[in-house]
């Protein structure tokens, strides 16, 4: 095509060193926290609201149930029960299936060991918190938050939002100078992660600590009690898993090499179509 001949590739600096470093540290920390967290969840695969557990009446539970002579994995959410055999409750290779809420490929370690899961979880929680603190200190002091993440007034106008949503739905990604900065959907998604979900993980995690409860009793009460905090910890983690799934899909669809390179070297290729200047 004629346009392609005139297109010029230009490498621009997209991500700062701190963003790239904290991004990859966060990838490792969050993956370990998720998988060791599922190991911890497996020790008591039920969730409740309030201060204490109501064992007969969890709002979510994953169990193994014998139906006839068949063991089945049953996941119950409220009054809804789902047969999740093979994935949740009863999983593993045929003939060597075992009772476990989340399957062995999703937990650290792969076998059932709460003590090891907790050791990994709390070590990487420190890594995660230090990393998040570095990111926030730099974002506030270095201007990353104001410059790159906060949407402009114009971006928040309903017609612009609608236009961006429609463009995303058709998988049309920004080109040229528009690709130098985050679009409004990116900004809102990243903000909801770094400003809401990640701090919420820390706060709900601390709220499950009986030691920390004595330090700041108000925090666990803010979430409605320790079992509520555990529930919100699980839900916020689920939200992060959902974010990562969409994030990875969009990286692949928008050109994985360019995206991954920009998060490693900081350089991002922009294609200028018909640029004669």
């Amino acid at each position, binding site marked *: 095509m004629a346009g392609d001949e005139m297109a010029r590739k230009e490498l621009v600096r997209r991500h700062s060193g701190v963003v790239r470093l904290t991004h990859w540290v966060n990838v490792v920390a969050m993956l370990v926290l998720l998988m060791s967290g599922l190991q911890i969840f497996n020790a008591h695969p039920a969730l409740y609201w309030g201060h204490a557990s109501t064992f007969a009446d969890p709002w979510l539970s994953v169990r193994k149930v014998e139906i006839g002579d068949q063991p089945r994995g049953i996941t119950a959410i409220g009054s809804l029960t789902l047969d999740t055999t093979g994935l949740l409750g009863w999983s593993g290779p045929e003939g060597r299936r075992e009772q476990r809420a989340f399957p062995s490929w999703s937990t650290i370690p*792969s076998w059932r060991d709460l003590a090891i899961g907790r050791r990994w979880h709390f070590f990487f929680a420190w890594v995660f918190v230090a990393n998040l603190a570095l990111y926030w200190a730099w974002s506030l002091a270095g201007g990353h938050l104001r410059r790159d993440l906060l949407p402009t007034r114009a971006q928040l106008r309903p017609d612009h939002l609608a236009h961006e949503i429609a463009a995303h739905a058709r998988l049309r990604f920004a080109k040229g100078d528009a690709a130098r900065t985050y679009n409004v959907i990116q900004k809102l998604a990243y903000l909801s992660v770094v400003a809401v979900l990640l701090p919420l993980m820390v706060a709900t995690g601390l709220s499950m600590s009986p030691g920390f409860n004595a330090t700041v009793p108000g925090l666990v009460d803010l979430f409605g009690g320790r079992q509520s905090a555990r529930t919100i910890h699980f839900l916020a983690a689920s939200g992060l898993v959902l974010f990562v799934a969409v994030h990875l899909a969009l990286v692949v669809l928008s050109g994985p090499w360019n995206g991954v390179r920009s998060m490693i070297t900081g350089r991002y290729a922009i294609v200028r179509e018909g640029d004669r200047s």
Partner: protein
Amino acid sequence: MTLDRRRWLSAAGAALGSAWLAGCDRLATNSTFTGVLRVAERWTKGAQRLVTDRNALAREFSRAEISRDFRANGTLRPQDPEYVALVAENFAGYRLVIDGLVEQPLALTLAEVRAAPARTQVTRHDCVEGWSSIGEWTGARLSALLDRARLKPEARYIVLHCADTLDPYATDGAGRYYESIDLVDAYHPQTILAYAMNGATLPVRHGAPLRLRVERQLGYKHAKYVMRVEAVASLEGIGRGQGGFWPDRGYEWYAGI
């Protein structure tokens, strides 16, 4: 995206995934790596002690909030002969031994424990597995008992020796339950040896005749069936040396999180 590239991407993803899983499992059994992970326990304890007043109380609840389904864990009915004999006579011959690094070793009857300065508290019990139950506990303040025995200055930990064998298959003699706390927790106002639960005599499955309550830590620290309180300078040489039945099996000694 071409089919080739898609196939390449999924193959790379699968390879990366299985390498990650195998790597994690290998690290989980590597003693150097698990040794590194263990420093987190020191950081957590240090940070919590730094920001928490040593007498800061665990939250107390109202009687209306008491769980009607308070779960019992660990040993539910010890089969150890000495304990079975004690239950048979309703703990008439029971003596709480307080010894080790103390000036005045004691052997107290249950009546004497009940006559000691006491505290009643409605608190939340948090199991390491993740569940919580709320119960009311009445017991003798451990600080008062230790003061009566007069701790020697070199005492650093209080070891709770229990009546129950939780791991009958342990070949090294470390199958009996025990726990330990440091003096900060031993002298905390809510740290008691409870003899009553929810207004009634402590039931066997919850640790009769005496169980430790150390409210700012997880459930496994709350040793049941306490027979002997020993003041020591070091936890070495007790059990497998990690300060408790579960700490000997990989769990944190400091269970504030």
